């Protein structure tokens, strides 16, 4: 892939951002388990309850989903949780309120996963600054492509110590993987297969070939595998090729059926780790 001049110039000017909680975690531990859950789900004020229960259950870091009306990289489970969270009244203002004191108790790295439109509407500068103030370590914004990030927002993220997390997929060409690797400051989100979230069960041969291919590239950035990881078996298998795994839909589905969040979360994590 040919990079244009703007990007080349931006790359030359890149700053090293200071080590945050994510960098520390990746230095210290292997076989990391991360969980995705939707903010404001199943009830509006469950966000901190779920977050605390996940930390107590011993996961390594967390990905909090910021609900969006039209989440095009997500399958039905996360779509439904997002819709319900929005009906519950979840918004960016609300999530920052809910997480305002988070760092008094939450020590693990926390990332946000959300779509670009609510962030643009909120004001991306205000958003990134509030993330830093709240103690958010990284952002995953699937519909903010690398090129636009580099051109418009990299400086803002770097100045606030927020790591932007890029995705790689089985179709990402090697040269582009290298470019994303070079520009990553915490980890690469390795999408396990060509699919939206929650679509596949189990890990196939084709997938392990892809994981091995990426592993053999000996990237500088740690990789965490997400999409289609749902249980201990898939978690353990992908850890052979990466620094960890993210479970989303399977966990969100459990939340939707839970009668007792605290104990159900503990139990769920115990079946994985």
């Amino acid at each position, binding site marked *: *892939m040919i990079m*244009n001049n703007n990007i080349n110039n931006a790359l030359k000017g890149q700053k090293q951002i200071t080590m945050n909680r994510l960098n520390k975690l990746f230095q210290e531990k292997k076989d990391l388990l991360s969980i995705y859950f939707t903010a404001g789900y199943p009830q509006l004020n469950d966000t901190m309850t779920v977050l605390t229960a996940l930390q107590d259950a011993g996961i390594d870091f967390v990905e909090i989903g910021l609900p*969006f*009306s*039209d989440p*095009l*990289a997500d*399958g039905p489970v996360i*779509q439904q949780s997002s*819709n319900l969270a*929005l009906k519950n009244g979840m*918004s*960016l*203002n609300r999530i920052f309120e809910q997480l305002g004191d988070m760092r008094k108790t939450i020590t693990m790295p926390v990332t946000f996963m959300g*779509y*670009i*439109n*609510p*962030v*643009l*509407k*909120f004001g991306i500068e205000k958003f990134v600054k509030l993330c830093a103030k709240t103690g958010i370590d990284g952002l995953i914004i*699937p*519909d*903010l*492509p*690398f*090129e*636009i990030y580099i051109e418009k927002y990299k400086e803002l993220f770097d100045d606030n110590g927020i790591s932007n997390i*890029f*995705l*790689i*997929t089985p*179709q*990402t*060409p090697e040269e*582009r993987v290298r470019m994303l690797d070079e520009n990553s400051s915490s980890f690469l989100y390795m*999408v396990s297969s*060509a*699919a*939206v979230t929650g*679509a596949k069960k189990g890990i196939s041969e084709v997938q392990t070939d892809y994981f091995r291919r990426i592993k053999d590239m000996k990237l500088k950035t740690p990789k965490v595998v997400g999409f289609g990881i749902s249980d201990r078996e898939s978690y353990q298998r992908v850890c052979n090729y990466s620094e960890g795994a993210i479970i989303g839909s399977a966990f969100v589905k459990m939340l939707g059926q839970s009668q007792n969040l605290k104990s159900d979360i503990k139990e769920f994590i115990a079946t994985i780790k």
Partner: protein
Amino acid sequence: MFQPDEKGFYGQYGGAYIPEMLIPNIEELKSCYLKIMESESFLSEYKKLFTDFAGRPSPLFKAERLSAKYGANIWLKREDLNHTGSHKLNNTIGQILIAREMGRTRIIAETGAGQHGVATATVCALMNMQCVVYMGETDIERQAPNVARMRMLGAEVRPALSGNRTLKDATNEALRDWIANPTDTFYIIGSVVGPHPYPDMVARLQAIISAEMKQQLKEKCGSELPDYVIACVGGGSNAAGSFYHFIDDASVKLIGAEAAGLGLDSGETAASIARGEPGVIHGSLTYLMQDDDGQIIEPYSISAGLDYPGVGPLHSYLMESGRATYLPVTDKEALEAALELTRMEGIIPALESAHALAILSKLNFKKSDRVVVTVSGRGDKDMKCYMDYFKLTDK
């Protein structure tokens, strides 16, 4: 001046705000669409299909009675006479040739009114390709004849069950399908929306509308430039095609008709330019109806083809630069305009096109003005709606 830059931006609008999963496909398309579209083999096949299969050029018809009523020379660009009943085929013929050139074997599409779905299913039958069309469940109900046509043509119609179950939701599902099928599938987008290069590619394919208009006006009136070009705008493909070759002719007033639904302030509208603000939908930064939290507002229009909360980025740019004007038309105004065209000129228009026709009563023309209205499609698919509204059924 009105062409997108290499990254697909018209001014600040457009671009490709897409997840990494779609990047390889979009990059590949971006690198080859112009090369393919300018190749001799593409051009000769495209021209052949346009004349022999689609029946182009579509006529430019002088609407005498409407001209007398509105005090201007009113011409109708008869895209309703295009094969499959709308302008949509212009785009699908081009895109399927591009898909074939790129070696893709499976075609997906979204559809609102079903016109794009039918046009896609048609070229898939012609080219012997597998076809899956996503359509909102609400639209499947209100545009049943087109669903039947798609199925007869061999396409699989998959219902979109999220949101209001209309065009936006069908587009979400099509994009998710493309994410899940990145190697064999080509996504034929039906309008000048989506990530770059779609808005530009679709505008170029629909530009035949204004290219023909110019030639036909020259033959019929001696001058290739009209005073007004009027077209309806949902995503805005027939409008983009109708405006395309006139954009640099500042004397030609370009008017887009947006679907106001029950009224701009009713909360039930699809007028994205009048009631939207810049935001990202389906991979493009453009005018978008959204709430204070940046959540996309579910649109409403009686016309399934205009029932979309965004608009092509070209139109955002044409509006902002003042080059084109976009006016709202309510359901009721569109229905009355449909009946008027039917009774005065013997043409039953699609509900979408009826929005463009309703503009005639909103402008003050000079007697010498040459006004071209694009009748983007025919009304067969809307007969149930017309029969109900105008109480045309037997007692």
